[in-house]
Structures are given as C-alpha cells and as structure tokens.
C-alpha cells in the first residue's frame, strides 16, 4: 500500500530543462536562419560534403550480383534458384486459374483450358456459404460477380495466383521468424529494429534491391510482396505466443511435453486467434502491394491500374482498383469466417459420416469439375463474352468532361489561391530552415519528451538526412506531409468528435473509413489528377483522402474511451456540452488523438512516395526515379530518409502520448 502511494505522488517523469531550453533552441534557429544568407551550407548541404552512401550501397549490390560467391555457386545463382523454386507454385496457380496449358501431341497440341469463371465463382460462393452462411456467400458471390461482369476476370486471376502463393509463404515465414523470436529474446532483440525499418521504409525503396537480385517479373514481385507483408506477421506471432497464459505453458511442461510437442500441441493452437490477426494482415498487405509490385512485373490488376493511371483513363483505373479491393474484401472475410468457424460447437458434427464431414471440399471440387466440363459445351462459360461486360470508361470520360467545362474555373481558383497563399509560402519557409537549427530543435523536443536517448536519436536521424545530401528533398517531403496532415486533422477531428457523439454518425463514419482504407492507395490518384492535373496540390488532396481515416478513427475512439464516470461527474458539476468537450473529453482523449496523428503521418508518408507519380519533387520522387533506373543505392538512401522522417515523428509523438497517458493515470496499451 505505502509503496504504491509513494509511486503515485512522485512525478512520473523527472523534470527536464524547461522553457529555457526551448527559447535557446529557437534563438539558435533564428540566428542560423539569419546567418544562412551568407553561410549557404547551413541550408543546402554542399555537394562536396555528401557522404557517398548511395554509391557504397550500389557498389555493394553490384559486387553481390556480379562477384559474390559461396564457393560452389555464386550469389546470383543462389537468388535465381530461389526465384526458380518460387516460380513453380505460381505457375501451377496461373495454369489452373488463368492460362491453361498446352500438351504437345506429336505435331498438334492439345490445349487444356483453365478453370471456368463460373466454376471458380460458384466454388467460392459455395465455400463461403459453408463456412460463413448466406450473408458471406452473397458478399463473396457479388464480389466475384463484379470481377466477371466488369471484365476484370483474367487480370484478377493473375493477381489471385500470386496472392495464393505469396500469402501462405508470408504466413509461414512470418510465423517461423516469430517463433524464433519468441523462443529467444536475443533473436527478437535483433529483429525488432529491422522490422521497424522495414515497416517505415517506403516499399518502393526495397523494390529496387529485389529487382536487382531476382530480376524483373512476377516472381520478384511476389518476393517483394512477401517481404512487405512479413513484418506484421512476425510481430503478431511473437505477441500471440507471449499472450498464451503462463499457466497453459506450465501445464504443457507438467504434462511432459517435448519442445516440439509444446510448440505444435500447446502454443500454436492456444494462440490461434491471435495468429489469425496476423493472417488477416498478411492478406491485406499483400493486396495493398498488388499495384506497387506491378512496377517490377507482377502483371494482373496492378498492372491495369498503373497503365490506366499513365493513360489517365479514369474508368479503367477505377474498375481495376475496385477489383483489387473486392478481391481483398472477399479473401479477408472468408479467412475470418474460416478462423472463427471453430467457435461453433463441433460435438454435433462428430457422428456424421465422411461425406458430411468433407462436404465443403466435395462440393467445391464438384462445382469446379461440373463447370469445367460444361464449358466445353458452352464456350461463354470459359471466357465471359466481351459483349456482355460493363465498361464505365465512357461514363467517366463524360463526367470529367462535364466537370472540366462547368467547374474548372472554380476548381482552378481554389487550387491557385491555396497554392499561392498556403502551400508555396510554407514550402519556402521549410526549405529555408537551416538544418543544424532543425536538428537542435528536434533534439530539444526529444529531450523534453523522452530524455537524452530520444534526443540523440532524433538529432542523429536529422543529421543523417543532411549528410546524405537529401536535406532539401526531405524538407519538401516534410512540407507536403505536414500540410496534408494538418488538413486531414482539420477534417478528421470534427468528424471524429461528431461520430463520438452519435451512434448513427459513428456507424457511417466507421463504414466510410473502412472502405477508404481498403481501396489501394493508387486509386486515389486517378480522380484527383483528372480534376486538378499533376502537381503538389493534387498530391496533397490524394494524401489527405488516404490519410484521413486514422484521424477520424482515433479521435472517435479516444473520446469514446473517456470513462463514463468522469463524463457524468463533469455533467454533475454543471459542464455545458462545449465545456465538457473542451475541458474534459478532448484533454483526456488527447493521447489517443495524438496516436491518430501519428498514424496519419505514417499513412501520409507512405502515400507521399506513391504520389510521386503525379509529379512531386520530394524524396518520393527520388525513390521513384531510382526505381526506374534500377539505382539501388540512390533509392535505398532516399527511402531511408523517408524512414528517418517517419521514425522521428513516430518516436516523438509516441513518447509524448505514453508520457501523457502515464500522467493521466491511464493504463498503458498492451
């Protein structure tokens, strides 16, 4: 008792140098800013001083690919062998779902066609019905129906093939790494920073080494997808295994389990619901990756979106983009239904026979085979007739035309005035800031929030950006990201507050946000470019649209999370609605809202790189250029700089929120 009493009265965090440090840092910043007129190196890091990290990386990469050898075989042979092995299951899926194959029979060839669309559609729907009931069947049926009717079938099957291979590999690989991390703290400690980095470096950046090592094509796209989708599975596996109650583990030992029995019979089954979250993540991330992966040769829907974006074909782009979403949704829901199926009592099932127990499998095979055979009679079942597909292209073309004719002047006015009065001045301001001053300011912030280690970390990251010669580009990124986050918060906060106050708005907001988050990020670019042409403004709109989701979600959740008793107490004290909001709910929800800001920043940064396609001039553009030139060093270094910005924001905000929660006496999140 006395111990906890003392703990509570002692300040949770020791006092740090107060106002003075801030004032000093600001003064230094201003001084440096004034001096920058004469000492240009304060603003623009001189070319001569740049640490040639990117060349070192590129050289190392070349060495790997050209000269590295394991003795018996070279590194390149090794990577190509991996690619070859991974290609086998991929080709099998492709043959089955999309291509069919040809058997040479002497002079003639016998063409064995792929599965019929009707068969796949029917089998998916049937399986959904068996595991998830009528509603799921309807959903999945509609989703796959969309793919058929909108002429997306073949591309979708190509994409599905690579997903079908990448997802299991991602799950198994992630789980194995996770198990290693669970068993050995050292391994976990070594993995954590790598995972952190993998999740903050923009995906583009590691497309390049993958491209380099594995060549252009669907297999390297798949490898990039796996690498991208793996980290959350690793983390979730570790978390899920750690969450298995200590008593259950002790029981396993008392029962005399061997290491292997412990893992397979006790730990993994007990952690399966936790693990399913990871599976879901892998599916979603793999589908997120579809478009980006098509840049290194994935083909399928991603390729369609990218091509449409380049042609500015809004209809085609949206159709293919929605097809990806639809695929994601149906796979995700189906996966969840399969996972939660164990929750229904099974003791009823036991008595039934073989057919009843394997009904789903038999049904799926039956439908596939039936449709396959039927398709020999009715060719339309093999290839959905083009004449019957729906094409929204003309409609969107008309719409855009109409918008351009009738709304152009207004849109342009809005765009121009925002650009002239807000965007450009802000950009000039940031780009004009001297890097030592910014680094110092960040260090002071880090010191105040989290102590010397955090201060050292953020300052070092800022210096890293400067030293590698990316300061100016990084400032442009910071400007685009910053302004987008501000706009996103300006939208997200009020919506979140409204949603917290009303069930109906809450539901609408929740659904909208969920939908926004399943749309692949590229899809946002298409309408934006149609309306505003390329440039910073379009990028900003796209980033805001993509990143607003967490702003809404966390605000809503944070305010809802304020304990009911406190709200009641405030009411009893006579607070009016406004007072309640500003004096009680928002302050208490602030840590959570700040985590939302953090998430918004992360999403904005990931979208930033993608919006390079619409002609920004920041780090994202650097990465993109590096990708087109296959310049590993350049791309990785620019990517690392984006990661630096992300890590600085994440650590500062995260530390602040954690401290604030502690001060407010709220329990830490798990």
């Amino acid at each position: 008792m006395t111990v906890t009493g003392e703990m509570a009265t002692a300040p949770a965090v020791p006092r740090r140098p107060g106002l003075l440090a801030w004032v000093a840092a600001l003064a230094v910043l201003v001084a440096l800013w004034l001096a920058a007129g004469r000492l240009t190196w304060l603003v623009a890091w001189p070319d001569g001083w740049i640490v040639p990290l990117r060349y070192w990386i590129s050289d190392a990469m070349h060495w790997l690919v050209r000269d590295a050898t394991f003795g018996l075989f070279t590194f390149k042979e090794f990577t190509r062998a991996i690619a070859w092995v991974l290609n086998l299951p991929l080709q099998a899926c492709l043959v089955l779902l999309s291509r069919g194959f040809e058997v040479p029979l002497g002079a003639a060839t016998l063409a064995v066609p792929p599965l019929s669309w009707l068969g796949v559609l029917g089998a998916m729907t049937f399986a959904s019905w068996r595991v998830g009931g009528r509603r799921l069947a309807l959903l999945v049926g509609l989703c796959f129906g969309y793919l058929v009717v909108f002429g997306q079938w073949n591309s979708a099957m190509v994409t599905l093939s690579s997903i079908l291979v990448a997802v299991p590999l991602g799950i198994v690989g992630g789980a194995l790494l996770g198990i290693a991390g669970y068993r050995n703290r050292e391994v976990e400690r070594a993995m954590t920073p790598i995972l952190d980095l993998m999740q903050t470096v923009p995906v583009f950046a590691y497309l390049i080494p993958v491209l380099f090592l594995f060549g252009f094509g669907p297999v390297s796209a798949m490898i990039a997808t796996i690498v991208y989708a793996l980290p959350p599975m690793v983390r979730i596996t570790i978390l899920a295994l750690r969450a298995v109650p200590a008593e259950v583990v002790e029981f396993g030992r008392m029962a005399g389990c061997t290491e292997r029995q412990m893992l397979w019979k006790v730990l993994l089954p007990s952690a399966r619901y936790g693990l399913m979250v990871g599976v879901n993540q892998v599916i979603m991330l793999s589908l997120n990756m579809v478009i980006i992966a098509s840049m290194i040769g994935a083909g399928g829907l991603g390729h369609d979106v990218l091509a449409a974006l380049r042609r500015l074909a809004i209809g085609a782009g949206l159709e293919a983009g929605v097809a990806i979403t639809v695929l994601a949704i149906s796979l995700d829901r189906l996966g969840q239904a399969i996972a939660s199926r164990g929750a229904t009592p099974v003791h009823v099932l036991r008595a039934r026979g073989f057919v009843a127990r394997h009904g789903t499998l038999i049904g799926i095979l039956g439908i596939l085979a039936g449709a396959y055979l039927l398709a020999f009679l009715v060719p339309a079942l093999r290839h959905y007739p083009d004449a019957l597909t729906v094409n929204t292209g003309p409609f969107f073309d008309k719409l855009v035309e109409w918008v351009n004719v009738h709304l152009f002047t207004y849109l342009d006015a809005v765009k121009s005035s925002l650009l002239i009065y807000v965007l450009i001045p802000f950009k000039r301001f940031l780009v004009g800031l001297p890097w030592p001053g910014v680094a110092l300011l960040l260090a002071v912030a880090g010191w105040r929030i989290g102590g010397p280690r955090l201060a050292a970390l953020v300052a070092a990251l800022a210096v890293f950006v400067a030293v590698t010669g990316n300061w100016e580009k990084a400032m442009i990124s910071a400007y685009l990201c910053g302004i987008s986050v501000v706009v996103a918060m300006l939208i997200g906060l009020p919506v979140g507050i409204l949603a917290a106050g009303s069930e109906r708005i809450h539901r609408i907001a929740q659904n909208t946000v969920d939908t926004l988050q399943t749309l692949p990020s590229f899809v946002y670019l298409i309408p934006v470019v149609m309306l505003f042409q390329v440039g910073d403004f379009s990028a900003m709109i796209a980033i805001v649209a993509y990143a607003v989701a967490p702003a809404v979600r966390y605000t809503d959740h944070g305010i809802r999370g304020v304990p009911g008793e406190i709200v009641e107490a405030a009411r009893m004290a006579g607070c009016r609605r406004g007072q309640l909001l500003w004096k009680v709910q928002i302050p208490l929800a602030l840590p959570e809202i700040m985590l939302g800001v953090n998430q918004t920043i992360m999403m904005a940064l990931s979208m930033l790189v993608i919006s390079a396609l619409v002609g920004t001039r920041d780090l994202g553009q650097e990465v993109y250029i590096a990708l087109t030139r296959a310049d590993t060093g350049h791309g990785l270094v620019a990517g690392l700089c984006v990661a630096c910005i992300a890590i600085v924001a994440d650590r500062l905000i995260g530390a602040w929120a954690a401290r604030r929660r502690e001060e407010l006496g709220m329990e830490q999140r798990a």
Partner: protein
Amino acid sequence: MPSPTVAAATRPPQAEAGPSGAAGVKLTCRGLWKIFGEGGRRFLERHGGAPTSEQLAAGGLIGAVRDAGLEIHDGEVFVIMGLSGSGKSTFVRCLSRLIEPTAGELIFEGRDLLAASERELTEIRRHKMGMVFQHFALLPHLTVLGNVAFPLEVQGVGRAAREARALEVIELVGLKGRESYFPRELSGGQQQRVGIARSLAVEPEIWFLDEPFSALDPLIRREMQDEFLRLQRVLRKTIVFITHDFDEAIRLADRIAIMKDGRIVQIGRPEDLVTSPATQYVAEFTRDVSRAKVLSVRSVMSAVPESAGPESAGPESDGSGAAGGELAGELPAAARIGEVARRVLRAERPFAVVDEAGRVVGRLEPGQVLEVLAPGEAAPGPGGEGGVKAAQ
C-alpha cells in the same frame, strides 16, 4: 527479522507428523531458495546463503522463496497458505522444478530431483506428477476428452487406450456426457473438473493444486471442496494444495504450512496453528477462524490426571475412570468441538473422551466448550442459555 523463531517454529512440528504418522516421506525439501532477478545464485553465495530482506532489496532482487524446508508424507493433504505474493505459487513450482530453485535440496521418492536431467524430469512429470491450475489452463482447441487425454497423448499412449482412460476419469469427476464439449462451453466449476480429471489421468504419485478453487464463486467452491474430499477418500493421493483461504485449508488439510514473504513461518495441524501460533502473523491469520470447527475435543479436554499423556493412557484408566461428577456420556477425541458443542452444553455435565481404541483419555467440561465458542466471555460456570445461544 526473527529468523531464530522461524527456524524454531519450522522444525518441531515435523516431529509430531501427520495423522498417518509412520507413513513414508514422499517429498522433502531443505533450505530451498528462489531469488528472482539477474545473478540470484551469485548473490546468494556472496551473502553466505542467507541474505536478509534488506540485502535483497538493496540488490534489486526478489526473494520469492527463502530457506523453505518441509517433508510431505505419503497420502497426506498438505496445504500451503499465505497472503497474495507470499511465494506459494513459486514454491510449489520449485517443488516440481517448473521453476528452477536458486539453491536448496529437493528429494522426491528418495532421489535428488535437482540432479535429474531434463529428460529424467520429463519422465517424472509424465508419470508421477499432476498439477491443477488456478485458471484451469485448459487447451481451448481440444474437447473435454481431448484435454483429459492430452497428458497421455504426449506420452505416446495409443488413441483407444488413452481415450478409455480419459473416459474413466471424466466419469470420476462427474462430467460424463460432456466429453465432446469444448472448454468455452463449460462453466468455471466444470472447467476445473476437467483440469482435475486431466491431472489425474496419468495416476500421479504427487498431486499439486495451485489455488484450484479460487477463481470460482463461493457456492461452487464449496461444492468443489466436497468433491475434492470425496475424490481424496477414493484415491488417497499425496497432495500439495495451495490456498489463501484459511477456511478452505482447515476443511481439507491434514497439515498446513503458512508462508510469509517467502518464508515458511509455521507447519502444523490446523488446530496447532490455532492453539499455539508461532508468530503474531499466524495468530492474525487464524484469528477470525471459527475455533469450534478447528479444535478437536482432544485439544480442549482435560487429560485424565494419572496418565502422563493420552498415548500412555493404558487400559488401567478404563472403567468409567471419572474423577468427580457423573458423566453424561462419551465423546470421540478426534471430533471437532463444533460437532459436539450442542450435546455437551445441553447436558450441562462433563463427558468422557475416548480415543479410537475406545480408551478413555480425558474429560470435557461444558465450560471448556463455552470457552471455545465464546472465548474470554463466559466464566466457567453452568452454561445455561448463553451456551445454547452461542451454539446456534
């Protein structure tokens, strides 16, 4: 810390053993230490194997079990009690080496358990030990049958054999008909029955139960205690039972060890703890206990004067050997005061006390009963109405 008193309190009670007196010793531990934290073993050596609480605190270490020693006899129910955090769970896990003790000696069925290799230990746990956990620790993906058969499955017993055995124990704990339910479909009490069945499936030599009923509500807890007593009458296992509920302890225990801050403060039969608490702490613990439920007639009666002790009360003390006042009847020495109070107080006359062999070993006055029921309040006179009220 009063370590001399502790040592004194730890040793003597072992002399008077449990009810089964001469029965063999199943498990012995001596000088057992468990120190949590970096470098516990070295720390212990540096402080001559007996660091004080202050030294531990200064070293930033937690002494979860400190110099614990006890002997558990064949077929007895040995209860370990103590407040939350006193080290009960840690101690019992040291006894099965689920937690590696920092120092000490551990002898199970005559062999040194601490010297056993990992493989030997697995064998011992597979065949000789069973454990029941506070939060059941059932495997969520297995049915009742699967859970109970699990320890046998791990040993590699064939499916038919292990399921047959599992069905036996499931019936034993009264869960017949629910073999194919999943744990989440069962109530807390039923889940713990599964836990009990599971630990019994391998017919363990020693049975550890770590607060098995603490997570249950009072009514179910009582029911499970009855169930436990019933099982124990049938199985006669050697049991180490943890609880922090003294009422539970006295219902179930042959002997009780009381722990405080990692040390065993006292070991003894329930009534020893009540009648002669070794420390203030034990007295505190037993203060609110209903003494009538704990104290036996033997411990309250006045012994027959001419014999030195009940054991040597030979046959010569037979033949109504009453030393004054007519006796109202005979009472068994092992009975609890609570069970006989009403009779004694109604009769308003002393009773003769006889042991299992039917020998008279002493006499019990109504005043003595009243003193147990309402200590310090009633003068030893005719009990009358006050006594009757107290008994109700």
